[in-house]
Protein backbone atom coordinates (compact mmCIF):
# COMPACT_ATOMS: atom_id res chain seq x y z
CA UNK A 1 0.00 0.00 0.00
CA UNK A 2 3.05 2.27 0.23
CA UNK A 3 2.95 3.12 -3.49
CA UNK A 4 -0.60 4.11 -3.02
CA UNK A 5 0.20 6.30 -0.15
CA UNK A 6 3.06 7.91 -2.06
CA UNK A 7 0.72 8.50 -4.92
CA UNK A 8 -1.78 9.93 -2.53
CA UNK A 9 0.80 12.36 -1.18
CA UNK A 10 0.23 14.55 -4.18
CA UNK A 11 -3.50 14.55 -3.51
CA UNK A 12 -5.53 15.41 -0.54
CA UNK A 13 -6.31 12.67 1.87
CA UNK A 14 -9.97 12.87 1.01
CA UNK A 15 -9.30 12.38 -2.74
CA UNK A 16 -7.13 9.33 -2.03
CA UNK A 17 -9.86 7.82 0.16
CA UNK A 18 -12.45 8.37 -2.57
CA UNK A 19 -10.22 6.82 -5.30
CA UNK A 20 -9.51 3.75 -3.18
CA UNK A 21 -13.16 3.33 -2.31
CA UNK A 22 -14.26 3.62 -5.97
CA UNK A 23 -11.68 1.09 -7.18
CA UNK A 24 -12.49 -1.28 -4.37
CA UNK A 25 -16.16 -1.03 -5.14
CA UNK A 26 -15.55 -1.82 -8.82
CA UNK A 27 -13.29 -4.77 -8.02
CA UNK A 28 -15.60 -6.15 -5.37
CA UNK A 29 -18.69 -5.66 -7.49
CA UNK A 30 -17.13 -7.28 -10.54
CA UNK A 31 -15.91 -10.29 -8.60
CA UNK A 32 -19.27 -10.76 -7.00
CA UNK A 33 -21.00 -10.60 -10.41
CA UNK A 34 -18.70 -13.27 -11.83
CA UNK A 35 -19.29 -15.55 -8.84
CA UNK A 36 -23.05 -15.10 -9.05
CA UNK A 37 -23.13 -15.86 -12.79
CA UNK A 38 -21.01 -18.96 -12.35
CA UNK A 39 -23.19 -20.30 -9.57
CA UNK A 40 -26.32 -19.55 -11.54
CA UNK A 41 -25.08 -21.56 -14.51
CA UNK A 42 -24.13 -24.45 -12.24
CA UNK A 43 -27.45 -24.30 -10.46
CA UNK A 44 -29.33 -24.08 -13.77
CA UNK A 45 -27.42 -27.00 -15.35
CA UNK A 46 -27.39 -29.74 -12.78
CA UNK A 47 -31.02 -29.90 -11.69
CA UNK A 48 -32.28 -29.92 -15.34
CA UNK A 49 -30.15 -32.98 -16.25
CA UNK A 50 -31.16 -34.76 -13.06
CA UNK A 51 -34.79 -33.86 -13.70
CA UNK A 52 -34.74 -35.26 -17.26
CA UNK A 53 -33.40 -38.65 -16.10
CA UNK A 54 -35.83 -38.74 -13.19
CA UNK A 55 -38.73 -37.85 -15.50
CA UNK A 56 -37.74 -40.57 -17.93
CA UNK A 57 -37.54 -43.16 -15.12
CA UNK A 58 -40.88 -41.98 -13.79
CA UNK A 59 -42.53 -42.43 -17.20
CA UNK A 60 -40.90 -45.82 -17.59
CA UNK A 61 -42.12 -47.01 -14.19
CA UNK A 62 -45.60 -45.69 -14.93
CA UNK A 63 -45.77 -47.53 -18.27
CA UNK A 64 -44.37 -50.68 -16.66
CA UNK A 65 -47.11 -50.62 -14.03
CA UNK A 66 -49.78 -50.04 -16.72
CA UNK A 67 -48.57 -52.91 -18.89
CA UNK A 68 -48.35 -55.31 -15.95
CA UNK A 69 -51.85 -54.36 -14.87
CA UNK A 70 -53.33 -55.37 -18.24
CA UNK A 71 -54.61 -58.89 -18.84
CA UNK A 72 -51.70 -60.92 -20.24
CA UNK A 73 -49.46 -57.89 -19.82
CA UNK A 74 -46.75 -59.49 -17.73
CA UNK A 75 -46.55 -62.56 -19.96
CA UNK A 76 -46.31 -60.46 -23.13
CA UNK A 77 -43.67 -58.26 -21.55
CA UNK A 78 -41.58 -61.27 -20.49
CA UNK A 79 -41.76 -62.74 -23.99
CA UNK A 80 -40.54 -59.50 -25.56
CA UNK A 81 -37.92 -59.10 -22.86
CA UNK A 82 -36.36 -62.46 -23.60
CA UNK A 83 -36.35 -61.76 -27.37
CA UNK A 84 -34.81 -58.31 -27.11
CA UNK A 85 -32.30 -59.25 -24.43
CA UNK A 86 -31.16 -62.00 -26.79
CA UNK A 87 -30.90 -59.61 -29.75
CA UNK A 88 -29.05 -57.00 -27.70
CA UNK A 89 -26.64 -59.66 -26.41
CA UNK A 90 -25.94 -60.72 -30.01
CA UNK A 91 -25.19 -57.12 -30.93
CA UNK A 92 -22.95 -56.71 -27.90
CA UNK A 93 -20.91 -59.74 -28.90
CA UNK A 94 -20.67 -58.33 -32.40
CA UNK A 95 -19.40 -55.07 -30.91
CA UNK A 96 -16.78 -57.08 -28.99
CA UNK A 97 -15.63 -58.77 -32.19
CA UNK A 98 -15.24 -55.42 -33.94
CA UNK A 99 -13.82 -53.35 -31.07
CA UNK A 100 -12.05 -55.96 -28.89
CA UNK A 101 -13.63 -54.72 -25.67
CA UNK A 102 -12.08 -54.92 -22.25
CA UNK A 103 -14.08 -56.82 -19.69
CA UNK A 104 -14.93 -53.60 -17.85
CA UNK A 105 -16.17 -51.95 -21.06
CA UNK A 106 -18.23 -55.02 -21.92
CA UNK A 107 -19.88 -55.09 -18.49
CA UNK A 108 -20.64 -51.34 -18.52
CA UNK A 109 -22.18 -51.47 -21.98
CA UNK A 110 -24.10 -54.61 -21.08
CA UNK A 111 -25.79 -52.78 -18.19
CA UNK A 112 -26.83 -49.88 -20.45
CA UNK A 113 -27.96 -52.10 -23.27
CA UNK A 114 -30.02 -54.38 -21.04
CA UNK A 115 -31.86 -51.29 -19.82
CA UNK A 116 -32.45 -50.17 -23.42
CA UNK A 117 -33.70 -53.62 -24.37
CA UNK A 118 -36.13 -53.54 -21.46
CA UNK A 119 -37.48 -50.16 -22.52
CA UNK A 120 -37.94 -51.33 -26.09
CA UNK A 121 -39.63 -54.52 -24.85
CA UNK A 122 -42.00 -52.42 -22.77
CA UNK A 123 -42.98 -50.23 -25.75
CA UNK A 124 -43.45 -53.26 -27.98
CA UNK A 125 -45.56 -55.09 -25.38
CA UNK A 126 -47.68 -51.96 -24.90
CA UNK A 127 -48.19 -51.65 -28.67
CA UNK A 128 -49.22 -55.28 -29.02
CA UNK A 129 -51.62 -55.13 -26.10
CA UNK A 130 -53.18 -51.91 -27.43
CA UNK A 131 -53.68 -53.39 -30.89
CA UNK A 132 -55.16 -56.61 -29.48
CA UNK A 133 -57.78 -54.56 -27.72
CA UNK A 134 -58.65 -52.73 -30.93
CA UNK A 135 -57.67 -49.43 -29.44
CA UNK A 136 -54.29 -49.24 -31.09
CA UNK A 137 -54.97 -46.40 -33.52
CA UNK A 138 -52.08 -44.43 -32.13
CA UNK A 139 -49.84 -47.46 -32.54
CA UNK A 140 -50.85 -47.78 -36.18
CA UNK A 141 -49.50 -44.45 -37.32
CA UNK A 142 -45.95 -45.59 -37.68
CA UNK A 143 -44.17 -48.94 -37.78
CA UNK A 144 -41.88 -49.03 -34.77
CA UNK A 145 -38.34 -49.82 -35.94
CA UNK A 146 -37.28 -51.98 -33.06
CA UNK A 147 -33.92 -52.88 -34.50
CA UNK A 148 -32.98 -49.25 -35.07
CA UNK A 149 -33.88 -48.40 -31.47
CA UNK A 150 -31.65 -51.23 -30.31
CA UNK A 151 -28.79 -50.10 -32.56
CA UNK A 152 -29.19 -46.49 -31.39
CA UNK A 153 -29.09 -47.65 -27.77
CA UNK A 154 -25.91 -49.59 -28.48
CA UNK A 155 -24.35 -46.61 -30.22
CA UNK A 156 -25.08 -44.37 -27.23
CA UNK A 157 -23.54 -46.91 -24.89
CA UNK A 158 -20.53 -47.24 -27.22
CA UNK A 159 -19.94 -43.48 -27.21
CA UNK A 160 -20.21 -43.40 -23.42
CA UNK A 161 -17.85 -46.29 -22.65
CA UNK A 162 -15.52 -46.85 -25.61
CA UNK A 163 -12.53 -44.97 -26.94
CA UNK A 164 -13.04 -42.79 -30.01
CA UNK A 165 -11.38 -45.34 -32.27
CA UNK A 166 -13.53 -48.18 -30.96
CA UNK A 167 -16.76 -46.18 -31.23
CA UNK A 168 -15.92 -45.11 -34.79
CA UNK A 169 -15.19 -48.71 -35.85
CA UNK A 170 -18.54 -49.87 -34.52
CA UNK A 171 -20.40 -46.92 -36.04
CA UNK A 172 -18.95 -47.68 -39.49
CA UNK A 173 -20.08 -51.29 -39.27
CA UNK A 174 -23.61 -50.23 -38.27
CA UNK A 175 -23.77 -47.73 -41.13
CA UNK A 176 -22.58 -50.32 -43.64
CA UNK A 177 -25.23 -52.74 -42.42
CA UNK A 178 -28.00 -50.14 -42.70
CA UNK A 179 -26.95 -49.18 -46.22
CA UNK A 180 -26.89 -52.84 -47.28
CA UNK A 181 -30.43 -53.27 -45.94
CA UNK A 182 -31.66 -50.20 -47.83
CA UNK A 183 -30.14 -51.52 -51.07
CA UNK A 184 -31.78 -54.91 -50.52
CA UNK A 185 -35.23 -53.36 -49.95
CA UNK A 186 -34.87 -50.95 -52.87
CA UNK A 187 -33.84 -53.83 -55.13
CA UNK A 188 -36.84 -55.86 -54.00
CA UNK A 189 -39.15 -52.99 -54.87
CA UNK A 190 -37.66 -52.70 -58.34
CA UNK A 191 -38.04 -56.45 -58.69
CA UNK A 192 -41.78 -56.15 -58.07
CA UNK A 193 -42.12 -53.40 -60.67
CA UNK A 194 -39.90 -54.94 -63.31
CA UNK A 195 -42.32 -57.50 -64.86
CA UNK A 196 -44.63 -54.62 -65.82
CA UNK A 197 -42.20 -51.78 -66.44
CA UNK A 198 -39.63 -53.87 -68.36
CA UNK A 199 -36.72 -51.82 -67.07
CA UNK A 200 -33.34 -51.88 -68.78
CA UNK A 201 -30.21 -52.66 -66.79
CA UNK A 202 -29.25 -48.99 -67.03
CA UNK A 203 -32.62 -47.87 -65.65
CA UNK A 204 -32.37 -50.29 -62.74
CA UNK A 205 -28.90 -49.01 -61.86
CA UNK A 206 -30.09 -45.37 -61.98
CA UNK A 207 -33.37 -45.94 -60.11
CA UNK A 208 -31.78 -47.89 -57.29
CA UNK A 209 -29.99 -44.91 -55.64
CA UNK A 210 -33.25 -42.89 -55.72
CA UNK A 211 -35.08 -45.63 -53.90
CA UNK A 212 -32.24 -46.10 -51.42
CA UNK A 213 -32.46 -42.37 -50.63
CA UNK A 214 -36.24 -42.55 -50.15
CA UNK A 215 -36.09 -45.68 -47.97
CA UNK A 216 -37.86 -45.69 -44.59
CA UNK A 217 -38.12 -48.50 -42.00
CA UNK A 218 -41.84 -48.80 -42.92
CA UNK A 219 -40.89 -50.45 -46.21
CA UNK A 220 -40.30 -53.77 -44.50
CA UNK A 221 -43.99 -54.27 -43.79
CA UNK A 222 -44.98 -53.10 -47.29
CA UNK A 223 -42.54 -55.49 -48.96
CA UNK A 224 -43.68 -58.50 -46.96
CA UNK A 225 -47.31 -57.76 -47.91
CA UNK A 226 -46.41 -57.18 -51.56
CA UNK A 227 -45.01 -60.70 -51.82
CA UNK A 228 -48.53 -62.10 -51.91
CA UNK A 229 -50.54 -59.05 -52.92
CA UNK A 230 -48.52 -57.26 -55.57
CA UNK A 231 -48.13 -53.60 -56.34
CA UNK A 232 -51.26 -52.45 -54.53
CA UNK A 233 -49.26 -52.07 -51.33
CA UNK A 234 -46.26 -50.30 -52.75
CA UNK A 235 -44.68 -47.84 -50.30
CA UNK A 236 -44.52 -44.11 -51.04
CA UNK A 237 -41.61 -43.23 -53.30
CA UNK A 238 -40.43 -39.92 -54.83
CA UNK A 239 -42.49 -40.10 -57.99
CA UNK A 240 -41.02 -37.06 -59.69
CA UNK A 241 -37.44 -38.30 -59.64
CA UNK A 242 -38.57 -41.80 -60.50
CA UNK A 243 -40.68 -40.81 -63.50
CA UNK A 244 -37.86 -38.77 -65.06
CA UNK A 245 -36.01 -42.02 -65.73
CA UNK A 246 -38.96 -43.82 -67.38
CA UNK A 247 -40.20 -43.60 -70.96
CA UNK A 248 -43.79 -42.54 -71.78
CA UNK A 249 -45.30 -46.03 -71.82
CA UNK A 250 -43.55 -46.92 -68.58
CA UNK A 251 -44.89 -43.73 -66.98
CA UNK A 252 -48.47 -44.68 -67.96
CA UNK A 253 -48.09 -48.10 -66.37
CA UNK A 254 -46.30 -46.66 -63.32
CA UNK A 255 -49.28 -44.38 -62.67
CA UNK A 256 -51.49 -47.47 -62.15
CA UNK A 257 -49.33 -48.69 -59.26
CA UNK A 258 -50.98 -48.08 -55.89
CA UNK A 259 -48.81 -46.30 -53.34
CA UNK A 260 -50.43 -47.16 -50.09
CA UNK A 261 -48.05 -45.45 -47.71
CA UNK A 262 -47.42 -46.78 -44.23
CA UNK A 263 -48.78 -50.20 -43.48
CA UNK A 264 -48.72 -51.58 -40.01
CA UNK A 265 -50.65 -54.76 -39.52
CA UNK A 266 -49.60 -55.13 -35.94
CA UNK A 267 -46.85 -56.04 -33.58
CA UNK A 268 -46.41 -59.61 -32.45
CA UNK A 269 -43.65 -61.16 -30.41
CA UNK A 270 -43.22 -64.02 -32.91
CA UNK A 271 -41.99 -61.58 -35.57
CA UNK A 272 -38.66 -61.57 -33.75
CA UNK A 273 -36.19 -64.45 -33.77
CA UNK A 274 -35.32 -66.52 -30.70
CA UNK A 275 -31.83 -66.36 -29.29
CA UNK A 276 -30.69 -68.91 -26.70
CA UNK A 277 -28.72 -66.88 -24.19
CA UNK A 278 -27.25 -69.95 -22.58
CA UNK A 279 -26.10 -71.73 -25.73
CA UNK A 280 -22.33 -72.08 -25.97
CA UNK A 281 -20.29 -70.27 -27.04
CA UNK A 282 -22.68 -67.40 -26.34
CA UNK A 283 -22.06 -67.29 -22.61
CA UNK A 284 -20.24 -64.07 -21.63
CA UNK A 285 -17.42 -65.67 -19.67
CA UNK A 286 -16.15 -67.47 -22.76
CA UNK A 287 -15.61 -64.24 -24.69
CA UNK A 288 -12.53 -63.05 -22.83
CA UNK A 289 -9.06 -64.50 -22.51
CA UNK A 290 -8.31 -64.92 -18.80
CA UNK A 291 -4.83 -63.33 -18.92
CA UNK A 292 -4.80 -60.35 -21.23
CA UNK A 293 -7.68 -58.12 -22.23
CA UNK A 294 -6.62 -55.27 -24.47
CA UNK A 295 -8.81 -52.94 -26.47
CA UNK A 296 -7.97 -51.26 -29.77
CA UNK A 297 -5.48 -48.44 -29.12
Amino acid at each position, binding site marked *: MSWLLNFGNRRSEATLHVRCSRSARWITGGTLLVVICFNASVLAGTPKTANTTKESDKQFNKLLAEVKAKVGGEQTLNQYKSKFMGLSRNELRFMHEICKLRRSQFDAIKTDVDRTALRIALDAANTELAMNRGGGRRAQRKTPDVYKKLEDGLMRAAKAHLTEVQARAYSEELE*ARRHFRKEADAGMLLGFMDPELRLTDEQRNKLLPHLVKAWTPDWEQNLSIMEGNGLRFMPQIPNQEFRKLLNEKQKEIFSTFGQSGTIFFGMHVHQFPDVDLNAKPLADELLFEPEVEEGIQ
Partner: protein
Amino acid sequence: MSVTRLRTQPLPIARLAVICVAFLMQFAEVQAQFRLDIEDVAETIVPIAEATPPKREELDRRVVMVNENINGLLFHRHSNEGQARRSLARQLSLAIDAIDRDVGLTEDQRRKLQLAGAGDVSIFFAEVEKLRDEFGEKMLQNPNGINNIWQDIQPLRQRLQNSLFGPGSIFAKVAEGLFDELQLNKLQKVEQQRLRFFFETHLKRTICQLERRQPMHAKQRREVMKLLEEVEMPSRGTRQMTNNYVSYSLWKLRPQLSEILNGRQLAALDPLVRHGVDMEKTLREAGYLP
Protein backbone atom coordinates in the same frame (compact mmCIF):
# COMPACT_ATOMS: atom_id res chain seq x y z
CA MET B 1 -91.88 -12.21 -23.24
CA SER B 2 -88.55 -11.63 -24.95
CA VAL B 3 -86.48 -14.49 -26.42
CA THR B 4 -83.68 -13.85 -23.93
CA ARG B 5 -86.03 -14.23 -21.04
CA LEU B 6 -87.45 -17.43 -22.52
CA ARG B 7 -84.00 -18.96 -22.86
CA THR B 8 -82.95 -18.12 -19.35
CA GLN B 9 -86.14 -19.35 -17.71
CA PRO B 10 -86.29 -23.10 -16.89
CA LEU B 11 -89.07 -25.05 -18.59
CA PRO B 12 -92.09 -25.48 -16.36
CA ILE B 13 -92.26 -28.99 -14.87
CA ALA B 14 -95.74 -29.51 -16.17
CA ARG B 15 -94.62 -28.81 -19.74
CA LEU B 16 -91.76 -31.35 -19.34
CA ALA B 17 -94.14 -33.98 -18.05
CA VAL B 18 -96.39 -33.52 -21.08
CA ILE B 19 -93.45 -34.01 -23.49
CA CYS B 20 -92.32 -37.19 -21.70
CA VAL B 21 -95.77 -38.72 -21.73
CA ALA B 22 -96.19 -37.94 -25.45
CA PHE B 23 -92.83 -39.62 -26.19
CA LEU B 24 -93.73 -42.71 -24.20
CA MET B 25 -97.06 -43.00 -25.93
CA GLN B 26 -95.37 -42.78 -29.33
CA PHE B 27 -92.90 -45.43 -28.29
CA ALA B 28 -95.65 -47.70 -27.06
CA GLU B 29 -97.50 -47.17 -30.32
CA VAL B 30 -94.45 -48.24 -32.33
CA GLN B 31 -94.03 -51.29 -30.12
CA ALA B 32 -97.64 -52.20 -30.59
CA GLN B 33 -97.28 -51.80 -34.34
CA PHE B 34 -94.22 -54.01 -34.36
CA ARG B 35 -96.00 -56.70 -32.36
CA LEU B 36 -98.88 -56.42 -34.71
CA ASP B 37 -96.70 -56.99 -37.83
CA ILE B 38 -95.01 -60.08 -36.42
CA GLU B 39 -98.33 -61.49 -35.37
CA ASP B 40 -99.78 -60.78 -38.77
CA VAL B 41 -97.01 -62.61 -40.63
CA ALA B 42 -96.38 -65.42 -38.10
CA GLU B 43 -98.88 -67.67 -39.83
CA THR B 44 -97.24 -67.05 -43.19
CA ILE B 45 -93.66 -68.12 -42.19
CA VAL B 46 -92.77 -71.30 -44.01
CA PRO B 47 -90.60 -73.93 -42.28
CA ILE B 48 -87.00 -73.96 -43.65
CA ALA B 49 -87.36 -77.44 -45.16
CA GLU B 50 -90.27 -76.26 -47.27
CA ALA B 51 -88.73 -72.90 -48.37
CA THR B 52 -89.22 -71.96 -52.05
CA PRO B 53 -86.38 -70.56 -54.22
CA PRO B 54 -85.66 -66.82 -53.79
CA LYS B 55 -87.30 -64.25 -56.02
CA ARG B 56 -85.68 -63.00 -59.24
CA GLU B 57 -84.51 -59.75 -57.64
CA GLU B 58 -82.73 -61.72 -54.90
CA LEU B 59 -80.91 -63.88 -57.50
CA ASP B 60 -79.51 -60.91 -59.42
CA ARG B 61 -78.31 -59.30 -56.23
CA ARG B 62 -76.22 -62.33 -55.39
CA VAL B 63 -74.73 -62.49 -58.89
CA VAL B 64 -73.88 -58.82 -58.66
CA MET B 65 -72.18 -59.50 -55.33
CA VAL B 66 -70.05 -62.28 -56.85
CA ASN B 67 -68.95 -60.01 -59.70
CA GLU B 68 -68.11 -57.19 -57.34
CA ASN B 69 -66.04 -59.52 -55.19
CA ILE B 70 -64.14 -60.91 -58.17
CA ASN B 71 -63.53 -57.43 -59.60
CA GLY B 72 -62.35 -56.15 -56.23
CA LEU B 73 -59.95 -59.03 -55.63
CA LEU B 74 -58.56 -59.24 -59.16
CA PHE B 75 -58.65 -55.69 -60.45
CA HIS B 76 -58.30 -53.61 -57.28
CA ARG B 77 -55.44 -51.64 -58.82
CA HIS B 78 -57.47 -50.77 -61.87
CA SER B 79 -60.89 -50.07 -60.36
CA ASN B 80 -62.72 -52.24 -62.93
CA GLU B 81 -62.25 -54.81 -65.70
CA GLY B 82 -62.26 -52.22 -68.46
CA GLN B 83 -59.33 -50.34 -66.98
CA ALA B 84 -57.52 -53.63 -66.34
CA ARG B 85 -57.85 -54.55 -70.02
CA ARG B 86 -56.47 -51.16 -71.08
CA SER B 87 -53.55 -51.54 -68.68
CA LEU B 88 -52.79 -55.02 -70.06
CA ALA B 89 -52.83 -53.60 -73.59
CA ARG B 90 -50.21 -51.03 -72.50
CA GLN B 91 -48.12 -53.75 -70.84
CA LEU B 92 -48.18 -55.82 -74.02
CA SER B 93 -47.13 -52.82 -76.07
CA LEU B 94 -44.30 -52.12 -73.63
CA ALA B 95 -43.18 -55.78 -73.64
CA ILE B 96 -42.95 -55.72 -77.44
CA ASP B 97 -41.09 -52.39 -77.38
CA ALA B 98 -38.65 -53.83 -74.83
CA ILE B 99 -37.87 -56.79 -77.09
CA ASP B 100 -37.56 -54.47 -80.09
CA ARG B 101 -35.12 -52.32 -78.11
CA ASP B 102 -33.02 -55.37 -77.13
CA VAL B 103 -32.96 -57.40 -80.35
CA GLY B 104 -34.63 -55.38 -83.13
CA LEU B 105 -37.95 -56.71 -84.54
CA THR B 106 -39.34 -56.84 -88.05
CA GLU B 107 -42.94 -55.70 -88.69
CA ASP B 108 -44.03 -59.31 -89.14
CA GLN B 109 -42.44 -60.30 -85.81
CA ARG B 110 -44.18 -57.38 -84.05
CA ARG B 111 -47.53 -58.39 -85.51
CA LYS B 112 -47.13 -62.01 -84.40
CA LEU B 113 -46.10 -61.01 -80.89
CA GLN B 114 -49.08 -58.66 -80.70
CA LEU B 115 -51.42 -61.51 -81.65
CA ALA B 116 -49.78 -63.88 -79.18
CA GLY B 117 -50.13 -61.35 -76.36
CA ALA B 118 -53.74 -60.69 -77.23
CA GLY B 119 -54.28 -64.45 -77.04
CA ASP B 120 -52.88 -64.53 -73.51
CA VAL B 121 -55.22 -61.71 -72.47
CA SER B 122 -58.22 -63.49 -74.01
CA ILE B 123 -57.42 -66.75 -72.24
CA PHE B 124 -57.04 -64.91 -68.95
CA PHE B 125 -60.41 -63.16 -69.19
CA ALA B 126 -62.07 -66.36 -70.33
CA GLU B 127 -60.88 -67.94 -67.08
CA VAL B 128 -62.22 -64.96 -65.15
CA GLU B 129 -65.63 -65.40 -66.81
CA LYS B 130 -65.57 -69.08 -65.97
CA LEU B 131 -64.90 -68.16 -62.35
CA ARG B 132 -67.79 -65.70 -62.36
CA ASP B 133 -70.19 -68.36 -63.68
CA GLU B 134 -68.91 -70.95 -61.23
CA PHE B 135 -69.37 -68.71 -58.21
CA GLY B 136 -72.65 -67.35 -59.50
CA GLU B 137 -73.94 -70.93 -59.47
CA LYS B 138 -72.51 -71.56 -56.00
CA MET B 139 -74.17 -68.45 -54.66
CA LEU B 140 -77.56 -69.61 -55.96
CA GLN B 141 -77.32 -72.73 -53.88
CA ASN B 142 -75.62 -71.28 -50.86
CA PRO B 143 -75.00 -67.60 -50.09
CA ASN B 144 -71.97 -68.62 -48.03
CA GLY B 145 -70.33 -70.17 -51.09
CA ILE B 146 -68.60 -66.84 -51.69
CA ASN B 147 -66.27 -67.58 -48.77
CA ASN B 148 -64.11 -69.97 -50.83
CA ILE B 149 -63.59 -67.51 -53.63
CA TRP B 150 -60.14 -66.46 -52.36
CA GLN B 151 -58.62 -69.91 -53.00
CA ASP B 152 -59.83 -70.01 -56.58
CA ILE B 153 -58.97 -66.45 -57.38
CA GLN B 154 -55.44 -66.51 -55.97
CA PRO B 155 -53.79 -68.26 -58.96
CA LEU B 156 -55.33 -65.71 -61.32
CA ARG B 157 -54.10 -62.86 -59.11
CA GLN B 158 -50.57 -64.31 -59.14
CA ARG B 159 -50.58 -64.54 -62.93
CA LEU B 160 -51.73 -60.96 -63.22
CA GLN B 161 -49.08 -59.76 -60.77
CA ASN B 162 -46.23 -61.67 -62.43
CA SER B 163 -47.20 -60.51 -65.92
CA LEU B 164 -49.39 -62.42 -68.34
CA PHE B 165 -46.58 -62.37 -70.93
CA GLY B 166 -43.89 -64.10 -68.87
CA PRO B 167 -42.46 -67.63 -69.18
CA GLY B 168 -45.07 -70.23 -70.04
CA SER B 169 -47.33 -67.77 -71.84
CA ILE B 170 -48.25 -67.92 -75.53
CA PHE B 171 -46.32 -64.69 -75.96
CA ALA B 172 -43.12 -66.28 -74.58
CA LYS B 173 -43.55 -69.45 -76.63
CA VAL B 174 -44.16 -67.54 -79.86
CA ALA B 175 -41.17 -65.29 -79.11
CA GLU B 176 -38.88 -68.32 -78.70
CA GLY B 177 -39.83 -69.68 -82.11
CA LEU B 178 -39.76 -66.33 -83.83
CA PHE B 179 -36.17 -65.16 -83.49
CA ASP B 180 -33.04 -66.09 -85.37
CA GLU B 181 -29.95 -67.23 -83.49
CA LEU B 182 -28.46 -63.77 -83.18
CA GLN B 183 -31.67 -62.25 -81.79
CA LEU B 184 -32.07 -65.18 -79.40
CA ASN B 185 -28.55 -64.75 -78.03
CA LYS B 186 -29.13 -61.04 -77.45
CA LEU B 187 -32.44 -61.73 -75.72
CA GLN B 188 -30.95 -64.41 -73.50
CA LYS B 189 -28.15 -62.06 -72.47
CA VAL B 190 -30.66 -59.35 -71.47
CA GLU B 191 -32.78 -61.88 -69.61
CA GLN B 192 -29.76 -63.19 -67.73
CA GLN B 193 -28.89 -59.64 -66.65
CA ARG B 194 -32.43 -59.22 -65.35
CA LEU B 195 -32.35 -62.52 -63.46
CA ARG B 196 -28.91 -61.69 -62.05
CA PHE B 197 -30.41 -58.48 -60.60
CA PHE B 198 -33.25 -60.48 -58.96
CA PHE B 199 -30.75 -63.05 -57.70
CA GLU B 200 -28.48 -60.47 -56.06
CA THR B 201 -31.43 -58.64 -54.59
CA HIS B 202 -32.85 -61.73 -53.01
CA LEU B 203 -29.42 -62.78 -51.79
CA LYS B 204 -29.10 -59.42 -50.04
CA ARG B 205 -32.52 -59.90 -48.50
CA THR B 206 -31.54 -63.33 -47.20
CA ILE B 207 -28.37 -61.89 -45.70
CA CYS B 208 -30.44 -59.14 -44.03
CA GLN B 209 -32.77 -61.79 -42.56
CA LEU B 210 -29.73 -63.68 -41.28
CA GLU B 211 -28.35 -60.50 -39.71
CA ARG B 212 -31.53 -60.10 -37.67
CA ARG B 213 -30.41 -63.27 -35.92
CA GLN B 214 -26.62 -62.99 -36.10
CA PRO B 215 -24.91 -59.79 -37.25
CA MET B 216 -22.18 -60.01 -39.91
CA HIS B 217 -19.11 -57.91 -40.62
CA ALA B 218 -19.04 -55.85 -43.80
CA LYS B 219 -16.17 -58.08 -44.98
CA GLN B 220 -18.27 -61.23 -44.50
CA ARG B 221 -21.09 -59.74 -46.53
CA ARG B 222 -18.75 -58.88 -49.38
CA GLU B 223 -17.27 -62.37 -49.39
CA VAL B 224 -20.68 -64.06 -49.45
CA MET B 225 -21.82 -61.85 -52.36
CA LYS B 226 -18.57 -62.61 -54.22
CA LEU B 227 -18.96 -66.36 -53.66
CA LEU B 228 -22.39 -66.32 -55.28
CA GLU B 229 -21.26 -64.17 -58.21
CA GLU B 230 -20.05 -67.41 -59.80
CA VAL B 231 -23.55 -68.97 -59.84
CA GLU B 232 -24.86 -69.17 -63.41
CA MET B 233 -28.18 -67.66 -64.39
CA PRO B 234 -30.64 -69.44 -66.72
CA SER B 235 -31.73 -67.89 -70.01
CA ARG B 236 -35.29 -67.35 -68.76
CA GLY B 237 -37.05 -67.28 -65.42
CA THR B 238 -39.27 -65.41 -62.99
CA ARG B 239 -38.49 -63.40 -59.89
CA GLN B 240 -40.10 -66.00 -57.62
CA MET B 241 -38.23 -68.91 -59.12
CA THR B 242 -34.99 -66.93 -58.86
CA ASN B 243 -35.70 -66.43 -55.14
CA ASN B 244 -35.88 -70.21 -54.74
CA TYR B 245 -32.65 -70.52 -56.70
CA VAL B 246 -30.92 -68.28 -54.15
CA SER B 247 -31.96 -70.57 -51.28
CA TYR B 248 -30.86 -73.64 -53.25
CA SER B 249 -27.48 -72.08 -54.11
CA LEU B 250 -26.79 -71.04 -50.50
CA TRP B 251 -27.63 -74.53 -49.31
CA LYS B 252 -25.38 -76.15 -51.89
CA LEU B 253 -22.48 -73.78 -51.15
CA ARG B 254 -22.56 -74.44 -47.41
CA PRO B 255 -19.03 -75.94 -47.28
CA GLN B 256 -17.57 -72.78 -48.83
CA LEU B 257 -19.76 -70.58 -46.63
CA SER B 258 -18.39 -72.29 -43.50
CA GLU B 259 -15.04 -70.64 -44.31
CA ILE B 260 -16.64 -67.20 -44.29
CA LEU B 261 -19.27 -67.48 -41.55
CA ASN B 262 -18.85 -68.70 -37.99
CA GLY B 263 -20.84 -71.54 -36.41
CA ARG B 264 -23.55 -69.29 -34.95
CA GLN B 265 -24.10 -67.55 -38.28
CA LEU B 266 -24.31 -70.83 -40.19
CA ALA B 267 -26.76 -72.22 -37.65
CA ALA B 268 -28.92 -69.10 -38.14
CA LEU B 269 -28.70 -69.37 -41.95
CA ASP B 270 -29.82 -73.00 -42.16
CA PRO B 271 -33.55 -72.54 -41.46
CA LEU B 272 -33.70 -69.70 -44.01
CA VAL B 273 -32.34 -71.80 -46.90
CA ARG B 274 -33.11 -75.41 -46.03
CA HIS B 275 -36.22 -75.44 -48.24
CA GLY B 276 -33.98 -74.71 -51.25
CA VAL B 277 -32.88 -78.34 -51.46
CA ASP B 278 -36.54 -79.40 -51.87
CA MET B 279 -36.80 -77.14 -54.89
CA GLU B 280 -34.22 -79.04 -56.95
CA LYS B 281 -36.74 -80.79 -59.17
CA THR B 282 -38.79 -77.63 -59.74
CA LEU B 283 -35.67 -75.63 -60.55
CA ARG B 284 -34.52 -78.26 -63.03
CA GLU B 285 -37.91 -78.18 -64.78
CA ALA B 286 -37.80 -74.38 -64.92
CA GLY B 287 -34.39 -74.47 -66.59
CA TYR B 288 -32.38 -73.15 -63.62
CA LEU B 289 -30.44 -76.40 -63.25
CA PRO B 290 -29.05 -78.66 -66.02
